[in-house]
């Protein structure tokens, strides 16, 4: 057990420790809480970067295993760090940083225990990405969801509570499905470990197999609810657009957890080696994904408010990813992962931007009114009357950011949104390598068409809303914006620029990830053969 191996658990423990330490601190010291929390997230980010380094350095075949309680794999709970999970960890840390900085300007004052909940959300996310055990996944899912309920309700007010009620009700029902699915799988196969399950699937009898598949299907529905697949994701636009901006920003990755698990499990369990179960549920994912893209695009077009637009664009990206998984084309996963990173960063930035842009407008005033009203109820410090500083260049910077978001969301060049779509299309058209000249199937054509049309829809909608906001707004009301509010937006957009510039290395990483995912033994072998720590090794 060297320290680098122990680092695997840091993304879970650190946020939890921070959260626990912050709980008893009085809410009047919010800034202190914020700074501590921020510092913790910075450390988290550094750790995830190191972890990415660890998995991509090729050591241990890119998969590291952490045995909790030193119990070996199929029995105890293991954390599994591979390229995919490391990527997701880093992504959530980046989003966490941005949202947190943004929140410290003022949103964390809209309710109590913001930072603790936020850190616990991060811990839940990271746990869900890392765990290699189905039931432990449930626990971290619940942790993440519980924190998301809390954060969604942060700031209270009728809109959020109403949205929260639906969000919670639907997700509670989905959690029941999760439990039924996991236990059915256990009842049929006798294991909870994902790697062990992948191995056992190959030798299941027919009755066990059908029960296992029914369980997996229920599990899948639970994840698809989180991923927002049509018609299971109607709760999403309302919930996300009701959330406070930093919360909505971090929520950008919540749907991706659903996608992540779907991707992980369907490639691990139902790969080519799974016997008659191979490719189980793929068609559902494909068509569901396609419908989701279509529905998301329609929603994007139909949105009057930016919040809903952003939420629907999350559905589009979910659909894109689900369909990519459903295509059953290992290569597309690489492009899809690139898309995942890019679209997540984009939606996060956009959610943060929305409130800044709308602040000068009536819509923003509404939000503020709600906040003020919420404050009216309890005897607490009033929020600052002055929100941010009015700098003349502000509008231009906001406009620029908005443009960047529009370009990213509609997949126009030159930013990573375009490269992501390019990567997906490239891998779609050239499944068996460049010039392989495989025929393109009808489903693939539909996918391509929807990919382009959804970009178009985003372009039209963003154009419409952008013109209304920036070009027809009454002059003279320059929104007041804090530097620490605009900085995270700029940094997130800079990250997409960085992603575009470093597309080569990034794509290499994604492709390596996709290749590793396509071969389940890359996952199962290290997990099932990891040695326990012995007393001789330790101090």
């Amino acid at each position, binding site marked *: 057990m060297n320290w680098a191996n122990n680092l695997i658990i840091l993304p879970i423990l650190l946020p939890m420790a921070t959260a626990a330490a912050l709980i008893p601190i009085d809410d009047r010291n919010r800034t202190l809480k914020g700074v501590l929390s921020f510092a913790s997230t910075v450390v988290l980010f550094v750790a995830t970067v190191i972890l990415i380094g660890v998995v991509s350095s090729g050591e241990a075949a890119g998969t590291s295993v952490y045995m909790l309680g030193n119990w070996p794999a199929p029995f105890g709970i293991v954390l599994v760090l591979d390229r995919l999970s490391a990527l997701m960890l880093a992504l959530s840390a980046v989003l966490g940083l941005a949202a947190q900085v943004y929140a410290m300007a003022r949103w964390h004052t809209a309710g109590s225990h913001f930072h603790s909940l936020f850190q616990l959300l991060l811990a839940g996310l990271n746990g869900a990405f890392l765990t290699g055990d189905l039931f432990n996944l449930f626990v971290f899912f619940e942790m993440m969801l519980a924190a998301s309920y809390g954060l969604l309700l942060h700031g209270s007010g009728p809109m959020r*509570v*109403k949205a929260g009620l639906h969000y919670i009700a639907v997700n509670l029902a989905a959690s029941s499905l999760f*439990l039924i699915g996991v236990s059915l799988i256990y009842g049929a196969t006798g294991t909870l470990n994902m790697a062990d399950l992948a191995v056992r699937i190959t030798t299941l009898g027919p009755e066990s197999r059908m029960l296992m598949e029914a369980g997996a299907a229920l599990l899948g529905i639970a994840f698809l609810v989180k991923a927002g697949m049509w018609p299971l994701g109607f709760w999403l636009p309302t919930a996300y657009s009701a959330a406070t901006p930093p919360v909505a920003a971090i929520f950008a990755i919540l749907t991706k957890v659903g996608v992540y698990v779907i991707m992980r499990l369907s490639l691990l369990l139902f790969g080519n080696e799974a016997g008659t179960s191979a490719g189980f549920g793929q068609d559902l994912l494909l068509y569901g994904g396609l419908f989701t893209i279509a529905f998301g695009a329609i929603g994007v077009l139909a949105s009057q408010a930016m919040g809903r637009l952003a939420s629907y664009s999350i559905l589009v990206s979910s659909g894109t990813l689900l369909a990519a998984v459903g295509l059953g084309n290992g290569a597309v996963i690489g492009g899809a992962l690139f898309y995942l990173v890019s679209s997540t960063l984009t939606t996060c930035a956009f959610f943060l931007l929305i409130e800044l842009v709308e602040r000068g407008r009536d819509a923003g005033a509404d939000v503020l009114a709600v906040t003020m009203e919420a404050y009216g109820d309890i005897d607490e410090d009033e929020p600052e009357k002055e929100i941010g500083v009015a700098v003349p260049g502000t509008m231009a910077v906001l406009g620029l950011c908005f443009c960047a978001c529009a370009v990213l969301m509609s997949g126009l060049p030159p930013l990573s949104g375009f490269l992501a779509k390019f990567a997906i299309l490239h891998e779609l058209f050239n499944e068996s390598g460049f010039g392989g000249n495989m025929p393109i199937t009808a489903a693939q054509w539909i996918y391509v068409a929807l990919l382009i049309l959804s970009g178009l829809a985003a372009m039209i909608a963003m154009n419409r809303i952008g013109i209304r906001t920036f070009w027809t707004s009454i002059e003279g009301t320059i929104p007041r914006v804090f530097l620490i509010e605009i900085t995270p937006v700029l940094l997130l957009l800079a990250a997409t620029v960085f992603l575009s510039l470093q597309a080569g290395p990034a794509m290499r990483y994604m492709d390596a990830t996709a290749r590793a995912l396509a071969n389940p033994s890359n996952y199962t072998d290290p997990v099932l053969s990891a040695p326990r720590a012995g007393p001789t090794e330790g101090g």
Partner: protein
Amino acid sequence: MELVLSAGIGVLTASGVWLLFRPRTYQVIIGLSLLSYAVNLFIFGMGRLRVNAPPVLEPGGVGGLLTHTDPIPQALVLTAIVIGFAMTALFLVVLLASRGFTGTDHVDGRE
């Protein structure tokens, strides 16, 4: 045993699910509670049913599935009970808040 318990699970599920479709928040929370009983029993059943074979060992003893019931589903149910309790509490408070803000106990916040 199995027949009775599975019938019970079925009835609990049906009642719970039916309540999930109802328009009043209170109906939904009762439904979720019933459903969680059903789910807990279902998880529990996945370890098969045994009478008087609790997974408690003699000191120094070694257990086996011949003499003891499957402990894993029990551990899972325990976790599920806790989480279910937490979620019931949360949903309750949210439905109260919704009632307070919207003035109605309809799940959509309006009649």
